[in-house]
């Protein structure tokens, strides 16, 4: 986790240094502001990973000499299939159309998006960890 943290922190550091030089030298605000925001995007997750990397024990994927067996066990729970991304995609398609052809397209858009969000959330609550629930 420390390599990941350093990658983001060094990028943030570079954007910060470049941004300060650019902002002072050019006096142009849009670019200076965007570079400062880029610095934050390096520092925020990078700082979190650094903080967390010092508190966790190294994972098997961080160790040079880890064997596959060191990572044995549950990796993660993955959805096997789900209709909700497609439903949500249909909703956003109508959002796109409503920007061009009129607000009334927002009605099916919002309906589909709300339906998809409810469906996805309840799917997650139902699905996670129910591995021994035959035909559940």
């Amino acid at each position, binding site marked *: 986790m420390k390599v990941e943290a350093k990658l983001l922190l060094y990028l943030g550091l570079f954007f910060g240094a470049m941004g300060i030089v650019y902002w002072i030298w050019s006096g142009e605000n849009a670019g200076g502001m965007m570079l400062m925001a880029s610095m934050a995007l390096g520092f925020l997750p990078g700082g979190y990973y650094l903080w967390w990397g010092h508190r966790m024990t190294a994972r098997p994927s961080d160790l040079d000499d880890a064997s596959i067996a060191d990572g044995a066990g549950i990796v993660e729970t993955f959805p096997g299939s789900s209709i909700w*991304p*497609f439903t949500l995609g249909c909703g956003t398609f109508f959002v796109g159309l409503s920007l061009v052809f009129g607000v009334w397209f927002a009605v099916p858009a919002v309906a589909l998006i709300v339906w998809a969000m409810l469906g996805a959330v309840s799917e997650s609550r139902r699905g996670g960890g129910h591995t021994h629930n035959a035909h559940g």
Partner: protein
Amino acid sequence: MTELIERPAADGGDVVVVDDHGGAGHDAHEHHGPSGLLKWLTTTDHKVIGLSYTVTSVLMLVIGGFLAELIRIQLATPNSTFVSLAEYNQLFTMHGSLMIYLFAGPFAFGGLANIIVPLQIGAPDMAFPRLNALSYWLYLSGSLIMLLGFVVAGGAADFGWVGYAPLSNALYSPGAGADLWIAALLLTGFSAIFTGVNLCATVFYLRAPGMTMFRMPIFTWNLLVVGILILLAFPVLTAGLVMLYCDRHFGTHIYTVHGGGVPVLWQHIFWFWGHPEVYILALPFFGMVTEVIAAFSKKPVFGYKGMIFATITIAALSLGVWAHHMFTTGVVLLPFFSIMSLLIAVPTGIKIFNWIGTMWGGKVRLETAMLFAIGFVITFLIGGLTGIYLASPPLDFFTHDTYFVVAHFHSVVLALVMGGMAGLYYWGPKVTGYRLNEPLGKIQFWLWFIGAQMMVVPQYILGLLGMPRRIAVYPNDPQWATLNQWATAGAILMGVSTLVFVVNFLYSWKRYPVGNNPWDAQTLEWFTTSPPPHHNYYSLPPIRSERPTWDYNHPDQRSLAHGHHEEPAPAGAPA
């Protein structure tokens, strides 16, 4: 249906997939999930999503290429009336938009990356499979919305793929085409952002045991950096587009002078996304070519850590060069952007040096994928070197908005298509279990390679002669006409090359089955079956270097830690 993924208890053991139907076993899902169209609509498998991305984006390449052929036919003769001036504006706008927004990026970070990155790090899927599926549906709906522009009254967007203000405002570009363009970019922009999140999370959290950061293949490294760049760049474009939409419809004056706005602000925002975007497009293809060159030279990547350093440096510098697209506006800091742009040549040069170093002394096999990779290096070098000219403000003042710029970036993007083809010929067998026909592939390569040079070299000269870009007609000048005809001939050769690819695809359909590792390649994805099972691995080899499959298959030629060499066997010695 949810599936709990477990890793094996020993190297080479079985990966156990447990689903909530109680069935244990790697193919348990095959008997329970939905089938047919519903299976495709509900899939969260990164390989199926990646394949959908690849097919859709290649379709966009074909449509965009068709528009390019129409442009070249128009320009083949002086004072041509093949298309009207208004139609020509739509043609070049949609050609650029399709190729940049809907082909090059989605093909690389949505298509091949989606399939290959989890395989290369031994992950069962992307970190957020449902978000990944949503990315594809957003991309597909964005693509459809952009193509709708051709059927609405007033036609498609016609202000260039860069949508410069104030030309793109409601006064100068009224009509649904422009709004469809904005809506499409909003949707595909979110699609890209979600993919960026997914790539970063997958690489950070789902690597197999022993797959440390500095053992990941270069392709995966490049895609991690692309994920970070997407998160930095795409939100800026999305915000810019929202403001453009407000200017067009809600009476704001963010990009208009008469309301107190600043038109050049759009250029700052657009290129703050647009230049990192150049590397979001390029870095995945750099990665593909690196993998192909290493595999077909039977050598480890030369300068592995240098490659990673170069990738990170390119990404870092790419955020500080946006205004080299704006030198002629007269309101940007020329020395800063010139220095930063010239600096990018250094890491890019390292990459080209390392590609040659990887081939040097290796057992080079000139199969189609390798030919495309070498063609990429040559063509990209031409595009990169002319980019160095353009980074110099005095030269840019002279060539800005001429065909020299057009030729420069077409050298680059035509090279990227070659990198993409190298990736398709190389990884196609892994994804489908079948390879393509080699002689047809070689014909496709030579047509494309010769066609690409035949198109861009006359355009470089035309640019230096002063032919502006985006003009539909030019005066009856014999020199311009001849050069344009050469360029058109080159474009037609590339069109024929694309047809050869389609023919090859149909001809080779399920004709040449392959094993797990047809190229004797080195990285982890070649350890699993072709095509890989649901959740990717029945078993994993020990991971002790950046090429675990090679170490497993060639125990006498193991990779050693950096800086250590097993004497006396030279790299690439026969097994």
